[in-house]
């Protein structure tokens, strides 16, 4: 899975500089999403050098934590989002995660996936892919999966999802360099893939979606994730209906500005 060099501090230092909470001038924003208890905070700590307390129970991080790192002379701001099973429901922590991916417009969204529970974790990955193409899947806890006799073909998974997939053991700091390389590729727009979009099983629904996307395009021609917006509207998601009414949706097209709904309530 990796070369010996990777665990050598000399090698790492040349490429990765952990900046802790120093992140005044950054080139890219990276969001860290994932199901609860998949090791997001561990990944966060190993990238930023911060010591956010990690705990073995779901729901450890309810607010976002931020840190920074430098990789190949580019500055990255890393935002650790609360762990969520989906981006659909309306609890406060899920909203923090969703609003950040949607309104915060991170340059890259890393979804940390528990390799021992791939199927359920993929639900979230697919939802993130609906919102943003600039996604990297961090397949964490592969050692635990191997111990249970589960081996995951990362290349195949990457092909299926249309985004980079990196196997890691964050606790042991293994695979972190590959993860950094993948983040860089996506941030710089070098990765060319075709991110998977959910196929609606019911033809009635896909027709309704197409119709609504047409209408939405007239008002918000530059918003990239209209398909997702349409889905949420058809579900009657009040916060998205409000965003349409207030024109906030069009702010999604402004590239460089960070407009985050920071507060929870």
């Amino acid at each position, binding site marked *: 899975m990796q070369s010996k060099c990777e665990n050598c501090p000399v090698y790492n230092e040349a490429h990765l500089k952990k900046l802790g909470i120093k992140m005044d001038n950054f080139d890219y924003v990276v969001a860290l999403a994932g199901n*609860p*208890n998949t090791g997001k905070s561990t990944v966060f700590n190993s990238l930023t050098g911060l*010591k956010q*307390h*990690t*705990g*073995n*129970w*779901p*729901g450890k991080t*309810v*607010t976002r934590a931020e840190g920074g790192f430098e990789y190949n002379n580019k500055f990255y701001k890393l935002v650790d989002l609360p762990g969520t*099973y989906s981006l659909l429901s*309306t*609890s*406060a*922590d*899920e909203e923090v995660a969703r609003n950040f991916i949607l309104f915060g417009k991170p340059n890259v969204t890393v979804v940390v996936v528990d390799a*021992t529970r*791939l*199927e359920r974790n*993929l*639900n979230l*990955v*697919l939802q993130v892919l609906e919102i943003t193409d600039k996604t990297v899947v961090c397949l964490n806890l592969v050692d*635990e999966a*191997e111990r249970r*006799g*589960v*081996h*995951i*073909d990362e290349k*195949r*998974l990457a092909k*299926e*999802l249309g985004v980079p997939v990196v196997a890691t053991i964050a606790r042991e700091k293994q695979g972190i360099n590959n993860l950094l390389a993948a983040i860089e590729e996506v941030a710089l727009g070098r990765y060319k893939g075709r991110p*998977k979009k*959910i*196929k*609606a*099983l*019911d033809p*009635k*629904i896909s027709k*309704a979606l197409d*119709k609504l996307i047409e*209408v*939405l395009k*007239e*008002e918000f021609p530059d918003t990239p994730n209209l398909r997702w917006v349409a*889905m949420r*509207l*058809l*579900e*009657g998601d009040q916060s998205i*209906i409000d965003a*349409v*009414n207030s*024109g906030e949706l069009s702010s999604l097209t402004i590239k460089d500005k960070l407009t985050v709904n920071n507060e929870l*309530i």
Partner: protein
Amino acid sequence: MKNKDKIIAAVNNLRWEMGENFHDSLMESLYTEASEIANKSIVLQDRKSKFDLDRFIDRIVTSKIWGFPLMFLILSLVLWVTIEGSNYPSQWLSYLLLDTVHPVLKSFSADIGLVWWLDGLLIDGAYLAMAWVISVMLPPMAIFFPIFTLLEDLGYLPRVAFNLDRFFKAAGAHGKQALTMSMGFGCNAAGVVAARIIDSPRERLIAIITNNFSLCNGRWPTQILIATIFIGALVPSEIAGMAAALSVVAVALLGIVLSLLVSWFLSKSVLKGEASTFTLELPPYRPPRVLQTLYTSLIDRTLIVLWRAIVFAIPAGLVIWSISNISLNDLSLAEHFIFAVDPVAIFIGLNGVIILAYVIAIPANEIVIPTILMLTVLTTGLAELGQGTGVMFEMDSLQDTASILTAGGWTVLTGINVMLFSLIHNPCSTTIYTIYKETGSMKWTIVSAILPLVMGFFVCFVVTQLWRIFS
């Protein structure tokens, strides 16, 4: 503008056309897709039918028979280790900070001719308050927190939540409240923030209001100390530590019971509704990395909590010294207050000193005991025991503390009532502020502060009446 109306109209039309199963159908598509992708990329290796240790442990710790006794045992053990282990370091610290540094400071201030009131305010007020908090708080925290964090890293907390889930459900509350409650055992403010993991606003509010019934780390030392003096003294000295630990466990369990009762009451009255279902994942047991855990729990928890205690103890020390030294009609302000509330306080089994100490300690529960000791000396004229009016007391030995409290008219009943009142009273100001920030509602903030206070007085009253009838 027109376009927006058009969008909303189109949405409404389409929703009408599609009927109700949009969400379900979409979810089905999502799950199907996820499962197809997972199946394609998972390569199952040959599975040796290996003994699954996680399952085996889970079957015991979440079993209907063994689940609760084990929880009880683990909590007792952790507390017992904390009580026994913090005894000596506490004594060393108090020897250093109180018996050694304090006299040095006093003679230094005499040498430079500091005005008496500045000397009293700074050295007997602020410094002693800080020194006392360090010597009493640091040892138990430095033992309790790392052990608690190890349990957390191991993955035990979700099992506790699993065991308690059905009780919370029966109380009409969210099962995840068991998790926020566990967080509250560390710090109530943290527990209140953790309630964000609960989806429904109703259940989240219940979790916030009842979090106060989780003994927080500001109150564990109070419980441990009073239990050691009054409960430990009831049994032979070989088992005193164990008896004290068990009584603290009993108080903590009472907190859980009250948490459930109040949740039940709220969900049957003002916060009516059904408990929502949720999936609680039992994470795999992971061997904790001991060194890193020690490091983070010392830095993240112990030092931060200690720092907070010091920050609050210094102004409290200033206040205590001032109200004991500013007189009005020959009585100090403190005495005025104490004598005024004494009749009511004694009626419910407490005394005016305890009430005043709790008022002064609203910013931080940590400083309740030193405040009580100082005020007791003041009102009983035990001045020769103390080092002057308004000096926070050190605990050279438990015997000294015990004799001061007995001189202040304390009995076993007072000890028990203080333990109960320490569990059931208003949350500290940080928690109250956090509740306000989290709920955004003045009304619910006031309810969360007043409800436990009233309950605390009521419980002490009932216990006192029963005690007087049966003894």
